[in-house]
């Protein structure tokens, strides 16, 4: 009788622990690590909304992917690595087909776990740049461009089409002093040495995101010819406001792809001309986003404010979910299974092929440039473009610029090898490859 009671209690505990949908055998479990609260909620919320809404739209419009419903489950990390790991431990027993950490710090902590737990990591355009190398990191995917690609694209644009154009110049780097902001420093330092520009580092501690005046005094003293920013959360609007206050020329100030519309708008008229990289469309004028509006937002199945739809970070969230959906769809195609596992989706993510025709079929014609992953290239190293704030919206300020592969790739190979060597016992790839 005691054993029976114990079994009943265990079954009840298990039933309570798993969401009803996740237990269903005919569903695919997709956890989203998000942050709608805390110091980084301003950046995290539109991304979380975009990710959620696109997947919810697929459930409403298409009944999921390949006829299988998606169970979408958010876990709040607060952009805190410790909480992110707790989220990971909480979703792991529910057989997720992938995780989306949305934090470089969380990604770095999960990379060693991915191959052990057989759960792919999708760190879209963030995380460890070297994880683009699928031969060393078969379980990690960071399309469509790495932080290193982004940096080389910024420097190429600023150098008039070539990084060599910056020779003899002073280049400042204003960055969030954590895993994310530190990520491109090795490349930056190598390029400074190689090309011959003077690199000035301006780290902004997380505690000083909204207290940057001394950094801007440094910038005033050094008078950089180009100021590159890798910021997140409250750091971005504060930095743009400080730049306006300091009358720093906006044509010399450019950011990696993270500032959102609201970050720039807060700085008022003076922020006109501020530039960032981007690789996808802004605005809501896409059929897929119209479907989101109709089937999800207007139907009251999302908390997204209407004004947020089409902003840079909302559309970034949509793009992330396009990758999730395409990875799952490819996995279904490769394996012939409807309900796929993490192992299957890893194969799917290695076979992403988003060309113009595919984007059109998804209702996102002209939304982004082509993306193709392989077993060895988990990134695609896509071209990006510079967009400029005109006071009310972003406008394209240049053509697509690809990374400086000749300079970046050898350093990326070196960094990936160094990572594997530093982590004793790093597994040699023996995962299936479908596109040799």
């Amino acid at each position, binding site marked *: 009788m005691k054993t029976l009671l114990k079994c009943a209690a265990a079954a009840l505990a298990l039933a309570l622990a798993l969401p009803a949908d996740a237990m269903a055998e005919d569903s695919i479990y997709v956890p989203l690590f998000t942050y709608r609260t805390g*110091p980084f909620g301003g950046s995290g919320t539109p991304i979380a909304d975009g990710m959620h809404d696109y997947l919810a739209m697929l459930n409403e419009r298409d009944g999921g992917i390949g006829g299988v419903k998606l169970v979408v489950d958010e876990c709040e990390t607060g952009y805190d690595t410790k909480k992110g790991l707790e989220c990971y431990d909480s979703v792991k027993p529910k057989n997720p087909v992938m995780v989306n950490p949305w934090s470089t710090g969380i990604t770095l902590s999960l990379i060693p776990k991915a191959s052990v737990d057989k759960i792919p990591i999708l760190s879209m355009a963030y995380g460890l740049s070297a994880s683009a190398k699928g031969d060393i990191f078969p379980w990690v995917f960071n399309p469509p461009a790495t932080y290193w690609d982004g940096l080389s694209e910024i420097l190429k644009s600023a150098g008039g089409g070539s990084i060599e154009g910056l020779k003899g110049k002073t280049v400042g780097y204003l960055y969030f002093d954590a895993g994310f902001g530190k990520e491109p420093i090795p490349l930056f330092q190598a390029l400074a040495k190689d090309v011959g520009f003077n690199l000035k580092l301006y780290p902004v501690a997380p*505690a000083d995101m909204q*207290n940057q*005046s*001394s950094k801007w005094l*440094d910038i005033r003293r050094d008078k950089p010819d180009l100021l590159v920013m890798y910021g997140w959360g*409250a750091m971005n609007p*504060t930095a743009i406001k400080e730049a306006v206050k300091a009358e720093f020329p906006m044509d010399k100030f450019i950011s990696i792809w993270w500032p959102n519309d609201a970050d720039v708008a*807060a700085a008022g008229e003076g922020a006109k001309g501020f530039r960032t990289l981007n690789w996808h469309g802004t605005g809501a004028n896409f059929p897929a986003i119209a479907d989101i509006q109709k089937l999800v937002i207007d139907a009251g199945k999302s908390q997204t404010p209407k004004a947020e739809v089409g902003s840079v970070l909302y559309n970034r969230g949509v793009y992330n979910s396009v990758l999730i959906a395409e990875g799952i769809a490819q996995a279904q195609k490769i394996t012939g299974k409807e309900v796929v596992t993490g192992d299957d989706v890893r194969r799917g993510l290695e076979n992403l092929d988003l060309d113009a025709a595919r984007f059109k079929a998804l209702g996102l014609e002209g939304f982004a440039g082509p993306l193709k992953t392989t077993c060895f290239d988990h990134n695609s190293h896509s071209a990006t473009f510079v967009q400029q704030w005109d006071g009310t919206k972003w406008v394209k300020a240049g053509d697509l610029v690809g990374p400086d592969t000749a300079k970046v790739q050898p350093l990326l190979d070196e960094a990936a090898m160094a990572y594997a060597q530093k982590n004793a016992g790093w597994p040699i790839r023996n995962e299936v490859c479908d596109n040799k």
Partner: protein
Amino acid sequence: MDLFHAIFVDPFAQMISAPDLLAQTVWEGFVAGILYALIALGFVLIYKASGVFNFAQGIMMVFAALTLVGLNEKGVPAWIALALSVAVMYGLAVAIERLVLRPLVNQPDIILLMATLGITYFLIGFGELVFGGSPKSMITKQLYLPEGAINLHVLGGQVQLQKLDIAAAVIAMLMVAGLALFFQKTRIGRALRAVADDHQAALSVGISLNQIWVIVWFTAGVVALATGIFWGARSDVSFALQVVSLKALPVLILGGLTSVPGAIVGGLIIGIGEKLGEFYWGPLLGGGIESWLAYMIALVFLLFRPQGLFGEKIIERI
């Protein structure tokens, strides 16, 4: 030798060669210091009256500023929103006194500290529930706060004074003067000082402890609102502002937990010290030193004055 030069010669040479930058650095430190002092003032007021180290002071600043901006977003005119925000802070003070402080009378200090941690998490959750997690812009124009800068062409260069920063400094000084007068010249102020000196003696002469607590928490709430307006105007109004409030801790260590002048002087020393340190000596350590330099400055002071600059010297004989 190079290191000696980099530490003891080069920074001073820079100060002499570019005095405009030195003046700008001191000004930035002064403004930051004033704002740190305002946050610290909130801590001091509550600690003096109730012996509670109010960990919730930072989130009170965020909550007050969010209330102001949130009400304005809902269509309430700015000045009415400001008055309503003050009223909300009064309501919060009454609620804290009734629901937290009164039931915990005579509990050890650590219990009261933990209670303020609880208030912090409650206000974070409640604030996010009501106002959402997205950052908001401070309504500087609607509050007629000045914009733009005064560019002084002095010392062989340019010193830029933001009008908003000047307004912050003036309002902060007026608030401090007002509070000093309130404590020294009014009946309630004297009652508050009596409570701070000895709770039981104050009770025995008919001072209502509960009433005093409400007044003090409300005053700290108004100070938090003023601080939130100026910090919010410098960046934005978001929960990230709460982190800034941690800068009040070294100010309190330095100035003493019980001293209003200590909070002001401590704030200025920390503000100016960290900006000078970051600007002139930061590059030697790769930059980003201001987040810990404030604590180092406070620790150095503690070596010589453990009770802080203006704190009361506690002598316990055993």
